[in-house]
């Protein structure tokens, strides 16, 4: 029963169809999908735009319920409630503009029962870890886009989630910031021991960060390839210098190119 112990998230025949609305036909967005995410791994999902990547994340986060199939987190079925122990970071800036950095991060602890002093201590530790110490009293408006995303990440990890879902968290950032944030995420992943589930459209980002990468097809999104990178746990963005980095990226692109062309209405 080793598989049962190591699988933290299990998806069985998961399908999502958005029901018909006025003038809109029902949309078969996703599935059926079977997937196992192992405890402690760094898992990435890539796919053409509109393939239902974000829907997949919302299903695992319990933000939306599957039309068919079953999703389990740590052996418990996920309905349409966000399970305890799951943290989500979105692509869009989700900082609370009316709170300063400390207050934003402490908000992440509002579900916990620890006392005020402990809360402050934990928030301060995470703020340090994310390199935000000098900006603890600043408001989000005074920070750059990368800094604001760090605040959102800090607000999520301060609750010590066992599964962190990242929905294209670096999509709105410039290339240098993305690479550095990638390092940051790898460091957090090692330090916290949490499972990371990353949605991204950037193939090199997926290869640089993940242990395993799943490639999704054009809508309705299904898994069409699963790539293991085989990177050591101790790694950073310099992994791109490895000789098989290019080979892994081009394997993903080969699969994905066909699917992307489909979404553009052309046959590969």
């Amino acid at each position, binding site marked *: 029963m080793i598989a049962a112990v190591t699988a933290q998230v299990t998806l069985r025949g998961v399908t999502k169809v958005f029901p018909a609305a006025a003038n809109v036909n029902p949309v078969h967005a996703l599935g059926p999908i079977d997937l196992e995410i192992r405890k402690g791994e760094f898992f990435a999902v890539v796919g053409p735009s509109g393939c239902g990547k974000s829907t997949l994340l919302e299903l695992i986060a319990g*933000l939306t319920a599957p039309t068919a199939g079953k999703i389990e987190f740590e052996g418990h079925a996920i309905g349409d409630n966000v399970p305890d122990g*799951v943290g*989500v970071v979105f692509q869009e800036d*989700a900082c609370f503009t*009316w709170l300063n950095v400390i207050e934003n991060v402490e908000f*992440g602890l509002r579900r916990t029962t620890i006392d005020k002093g402990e809360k402050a201590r934990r928030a301060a530790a995470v703020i340090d870890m994310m390199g935000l110490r000098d900006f603890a009293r600043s*408001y989000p*408006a005074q920070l750059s886009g990368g800094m604001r995303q760090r605040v959102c990440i800090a607000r999520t990890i301060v609750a010590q989630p066992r599964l962190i879902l990242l929905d294209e968290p670096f999509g709105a950032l410039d290339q240098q910031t993305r690479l550095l944030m990638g390092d940051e995420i790898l460091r957090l992943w090692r330090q916290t021991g949490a499972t990371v589930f990353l949605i991204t459209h950037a193939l090199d980002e997926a290869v640089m960060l993940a242990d395993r990468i799943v490639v999704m097809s054009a809508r309705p999104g299904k898994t069409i390839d699963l790539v293991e990178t085989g990177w050591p746990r101790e790694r950073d963005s310099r992994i791109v210098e490895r000789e098989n980095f290019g080979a892994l990226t081009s394997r993903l692109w080969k699969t994905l190119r066909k699917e992307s062309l489909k979404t553009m209405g052309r046959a590969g």
Partner: protein
Amino acid sequence: MSRLRLYQIAVVAGFILLLEALCLAGVIDKITMPPPHIILRDLFLMLLAGRYFDEIGKSLVNVLVAFASAYLVGVIIGTILHGQKTTREILDPLFATYYAIPVFAFYPLFIVMFGLGDGPQVLIGFMLAVVAVIITTLNGLDRVSPVLKKTARVSGLNALQTARHITLPFCAPYLLTAAKLALAYAFIGVIGSEFIMARSGVGYEISYAYTNFDNATMYPLILLILLLSIAANSLLSRWERVLLARRGQA
């Protein structure tokens, strides 16, 4: 004090000085308007003697009632309408053209319906203010981004907690703007209707003084209303600026 603020004060001061000069030079004759320093002196003497305190009090209470009821009703209707897409779409044209309607035209009708008391005056103030509050509330609620709503859900907030921790603080600047507008409209509505037809109130006294060539009463009362309205508005504006500055929007 910033340079901009100095210029702003200079413009107002310059205008007052110009009026003063025109009055003293006789370009504006005494029967039309006394010089500003005389108006200020008369206001001071009037307040010192306690004249018109009842009238001022009555008008202010009516303004306050019109403001408070319009604000409360406006925020509640705005919040409900935000969740009722169809109703909102039906009412949209009404909101869009509302301020083209001369609400004062209904005043005689209200007097017929409710008598020549405080009721019709408060109602006019309420009617002028309430739609501004509804529109501003809707505007604020529309701007709560989907990602903030998703964040509320992944943080395990229920509807009430989401309103308290996300929606309300997010909309605070809009609610202040709504308060500013409501107060200004309440002043206009109440004082304006007193002016047209009433038996008491500051607007009535201004109108009464006007028909009796009593400049020593009319101008000080106009100045008083002006000062009160601007003071209340500046107070709310200052608060609004503090909130917006924190969010990098001011």
